[in-house]
């Protein structure tokens, strides 16, 4: 007689085996889930094929000496030259005709102590952060040469040197922390400081005496609204996107070089990025040639372009990149980004 069904022992065995498989499945699922939550997936996202961009050169008067930053204010291109006595030069757009220079170093009413290199366009001109005094300054400027400086906030904070200062939504500010456990400090409207974001500590080798903020050095930039900011790590092709409350929204690792230690680390990102409402633009170097990377505010790599000039400073206005290099003091380069916009829309 053919045995149909299971004996009690067999049922017990099946139940035990069922439990065994269930437990194993649970462990494996948990491990996978844990791994999925924590692993930094290198190379998951990549740029599309490399394209090339060719610059137009605008010949300008010999005013530029050593440009620290380029930015846009009131429909003018502004060059900030930290070394010069008169630090800001203003150029009309789009032709880059020289207008005037203003803004001296000093402690007078319209003067500046050392500035962080953050300049944000406002309706009247731009605002910046005086890193030597923890003061937020707003500059009213127009193309006639009118230039007025107002201190709009003195930050009462123990930490001096609020580097990589960002202007975020609702008058909150973010800066790179000197805390070894957290990457950033967030200065809220009430004057409270909240530290946030863990260092990506497994990403790079570190000597015992090295300070985290130098090892995991980064360049940061906030979007025009101030509800997001991006961090591009110097020594790994890592982009992190945060919201204005300090919540990590996305992390994209394209490439890293974990074996390089200390001074031998290769700097993937070492030039300040610029941005508009849709994209972040950042320079990187490959085989000694400059590449312009375009990321969106979700931390997705959109496009990258091999550039024909060795530029080191960029800003963006009306789908055009304005750039300077360290060699030609009489040239401002422009790159048209119309292709990027068209590509993304299609």
């Amino acid at each position, binding site marked *: 007689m053919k045995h149909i069904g299971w004996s009690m022992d067999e049922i017990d065995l099946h139940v035990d085996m069922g439990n065994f498989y269930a437990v194993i499945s649970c462990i494996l699922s948990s491990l996978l889930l844990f791994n999925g939550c924590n692993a930094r997936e290198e190379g998951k996202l990549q740029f599309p094929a490399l394209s090339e961009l060719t610059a137009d050169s605008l010949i300008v008067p010999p005013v530029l000496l*050593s*440009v*620290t930053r380029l930015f846009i204010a009131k429909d003018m291109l502004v060059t900030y030259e*930290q*070394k010069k006595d008169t630090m800001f030069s203003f150029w009309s757009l789009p032709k880059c005709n020289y207008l005037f220079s203003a803004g001296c170093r000093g*402690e007078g009413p319209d003067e500046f*102590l*050392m500035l*962080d*290199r953050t300049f944000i366009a406002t309706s009247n001109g731009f605002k910046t952060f005086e*890193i*030597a*005094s*923890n*003061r937020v300054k707003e500059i009213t400027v127009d193309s006639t040469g009118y230039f007025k400086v107002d201190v709009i906030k*003195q930050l009462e904070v123990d*930490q*001096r*040197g609020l*580097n990589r200062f960002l202007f975020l939504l609702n008058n909150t500010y973010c800066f*790179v922390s*000197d805390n070894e456990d957290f990457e950033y400090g967030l200065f809220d409207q009430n004057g409270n400081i909240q530290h946030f974001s863990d260092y990506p500590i497994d990403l790079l080798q570190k000597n015992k*005496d*090295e*300070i985290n*903020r*130098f090892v995991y*050095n980064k*360049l940061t930039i906030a979007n025009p609204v101030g509800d997001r900011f991006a961090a591009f790590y*110097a020594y790994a092709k890592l982009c992190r996107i945060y919201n204005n409350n300090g919540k990590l929204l996305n992390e994209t690792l394209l490439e890293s070089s974990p074996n390089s230690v200390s*001074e031998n680390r290769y*700097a993937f990102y*070492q*030039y*300040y990025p610029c941005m508009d409402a849709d994209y972040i633009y950042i320079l990187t170097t490959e085989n000694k040639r400059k590449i312009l990377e375009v990321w969106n505010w979700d931390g997705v790599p959109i496009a990258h372009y091999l550039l024909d000039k060795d530029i*080191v400073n960029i800003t963006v206005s009306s789908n055009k990149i304005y750039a300077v290099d*360290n060699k030609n003091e009489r040239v401002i380069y422009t790159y048209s980004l119309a292709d990027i916009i068209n590509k993304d829309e299609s």
Partner: protein
Amino acid sequence: MKKNILKVILVAVFALVAGYNVYCSQKSAVISPLALANIEALASGEGGGGNHTCYDTWRKAPDDNSLAYWDWICQECEAYWLEYGRNRSSC
């Protein structure tokens, strides 16, 4: 009995006088907001003054180095753009 009362009164008076003096000395240490603002303004000069975290080992960065941090070096207790800093202390 009278002697004891006198002693207690003496101790109480002494304590009152001492307490009042301490109170007065604390009161005189309060700085007006204007003076405080002046002190802060003086302390907020470029680089100098105050109690800063600083680095004993460091390397200054070129002016155009975007990765530099504005930090204090212990030997001078002055702030510079630094390429790196190690061995933290205060000045």
